[in-house]
């Protein structure tokens, strides 16, 4: 079963997205902020990380950078999730080391397509 680390601080978004993904048969683990995401990535070694960009403690960009720099977690694909539907944020995320990009509100078929491409 594909293990997905969902990094999201908003309770509702976390609940909604995880329930929909679990329904599709994914194993979901959570992190609430950037630092937790880094730790979880190391300890759990998920198959894919869904990373929100606006996070407390350490923001998504910083967390992505550190995960990618770490040799153990560096190969885990990261899909950025952000509410900013603007091109500069997309570019920022991709430049910051994310492998893919999905805007919020998430369109589930499109997100699943992107997850599947890494598994």
């Amino acid at each position, binding site marked *: 079963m594909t293990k997905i680390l969902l990094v999201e601080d908003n309770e*509702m978004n976390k609940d*909604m*997205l995880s*329930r*929909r993904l679990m329904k599709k048969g994914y194993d979901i683990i959570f992190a609430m902020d950037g630092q937790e995401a880094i730790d979880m990535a190391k300890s759990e070694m998920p198959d894919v990380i869904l990373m929100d960009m606006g996070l407390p403690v350490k923001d998504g960009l910083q967390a992505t950078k550190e995960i990618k720099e770490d040799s153990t977690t560096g190969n885990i694909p990261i899909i950025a999730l952000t*509410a*900013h539907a603007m091109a*500069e944020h997309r570019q920022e995320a991709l430049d910051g080391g994310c492998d893919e990009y999905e805007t919020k*509100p998430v369109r589930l078929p499109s997100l699943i397509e992107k997850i599947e491409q890494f598994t």
Partner: protein
Amino acid sequence: MLNFVQTFKRLIIFSLAFIILITTLNTVRAADETIDNNASNIDLLWMLICAILVFMMQAGFMCLESGIIRNKNNINVALKNVSDFGISIVCFWTIGYGFMFGISKSGFMGSNDFFFDPSGTATSGQAMTFFIFQSMFCATAASIISGAVAERLKFNSYLVITAIVGTILYPVVGHWAWANSDDLFGGDGSTGWLYDAGFVDFAGSTIVHSTGGWIGLAIILIIGPRTGRFVEGKTRKFAPSNLPLSVLGVLLLGFGWHGFNGGSNLVLDEAVPGILLNTFLAAAAGIVVCLIFWGVQNTTAPAGDLLNGLLAGLVAVTASANWVTPLSAVIIGAGGGLVALYATRLLERLELDDPVGAIPVHLAGGIFGTLVLPFFAAEEYLIGNQNLTEYTGNVRVNQFIAQLIGIISVGLYTFFVSYILLNVINNYSPLRVSQEAEDIGLNIAEHDSSSDQIDLLKIMQYQNDTGDLSVRGPEDLFTEAGQIGYHYNILMGSLEESDKIMRKQKDDLQVAMQNAQTANQAKSDFLAKMSHELRTPLNAIIGYSEMLMEEAEDDGLDTYSDDLTKIHSSGEHLLTLINDILDLSKIEAGKMDLYIEDIELNTLLKQIEATAKPLVEKNKNKFIINNETKNMKLKNDQTKIRQILFNMLSNAAKFTNKGKITLKIKSENKNQIRFDVTDTGIGMNDEQIGNVFEEFTQAESSTSKNYGGTGLGLPISKKMTEIMGGRMEVESKEGKGTTFSITIPIVVQEEN
């Protein structure tokens, strides 16, 4: 200049010493002779009155010249006029009179009567009267020159010229024509050579007037025209500063001329009334002919022409006033006026600058009057001219030849002597003032004089240069310039006041503009923040409704699925609206940047097709993509192109039912690509087309109810297209369908 003055002084001292010696010897001899003196006292009275009348001509020249030139030089011209009187009289007394009327050496010049003093002789009264009269003539000849050279000749240069005129120029030619010493007082019967040649010039058309004119001509050839008078072949006229003063001057000259001609008869007899009649008839004819000349051209005569017409009439008749009939005087006067008129134009064409027209009046008028004398004079006078050589059998022709000889010899002598002498002096010390002096005016430059007008002009100039409105001009309610200054100051006061208000308003405006910019920035920031904040809960609404829809479907709860769809689509609509407002505020704030990347057109079209196909086919429409390009690669903002095309397609889909929607792609002008989205939908009328790119307007306000949409998609798409350096257009027919098209650069330059 100083060197020259010193040399000149030495020359005078040596000459004086020499002359005193000769004079002493001659006076002794003259005293020995007894002359029978028959002159009645009435003749003396007449001559003295005439001399005083001629003196008035000095005032006439002063008024004429200072009125016709510019204000900045009027004091200079006036002072030249009074100084030339002084210098010419002193020179004439010391040397000039002796050269003119002393005992002749070969008819060329006189040799005694220097430092004129006949006291103690039997004819001293007559001699003194004659001297007074003749010295006034010398002053007149000198004064003529000042007009021609006005506004650019140095004051000191002019004084030197006057001294030369009063010593070696005027007295010498005067001697040639008028020395007839057996008539006079203590002479030996020797005469001037022109007199001997039969040359006749009654009161000095040639001897006085042309002499002044020739010397004036020589000087203006040396010093050149006033700055700005002739520029690139164009003649500029300077407006007279005080024309009524000039008219007064002409009238004073006419007044004095009665003495000039009347006194030249030397006695008061029956000839005098005729001479005076001829004199003022010629003056009248001179001005009338100018009035007629301009009248037939349906134009008012220029002031200068009228004044000079009158004067030229006087100059012309001066040669023959005692020998012609009144009718002839009228013809000669009229001829003189016309000659002056044409001579004025000739001078302009030759770019010779004579500010007051002294050369046309005195030189041209003088030559004319002298030359026509033989044809108007009564024959008995010509026959009576004992000195006339019999060149031909015709006495008029003989006289004409004598006149020609006189005119040419006087011209050659006065012109060349003055030209050569002054050229030498000019090389030594320039006769002309500096450009700077000419600009500020000779009143200030040469005499340190100032006037209210000049002060006012200086202040105006200062204000013009500095923009300082706080300075004020001189005020004096008793002078014209002072009154102008007073009102100018009031004007300046108001101007300064309104300037202050304007400056304050400008500052206020700047502050207001800054505030507006800040407010606009705040608005954009607020919108960006708000739209972000709104999106988070919206995500939840859309997400949960979507999830519920899936669950309702899975669980077969169809009763909820309609309502859930409504919640979901409202959420989507709200999201679009928020995104659009954010885009718009970015565009308005100039923050909409392009992210240029390499795009494979085919990949882009595949993505578009995938996204738009479900939307387009929802209303049972057929979706056709017609790509006329091959393997096109773009360098442009992929996201924005996608957003624009999606907007165009969803728009088309929205207003088309069971129709056909075509996306056509073709390249245009080699470096542009064009996308056309054509539908077979409801179309628009002209008014709707006009509003289609306006923000928050849909083709019909009721449309949004039926079809949904924010009314922002098209304005945003259009603006994005323009940011790329492209354009968006629409074509539509009501009931037939609509085509929206964008034309954008294939490769966007980075700076765009």
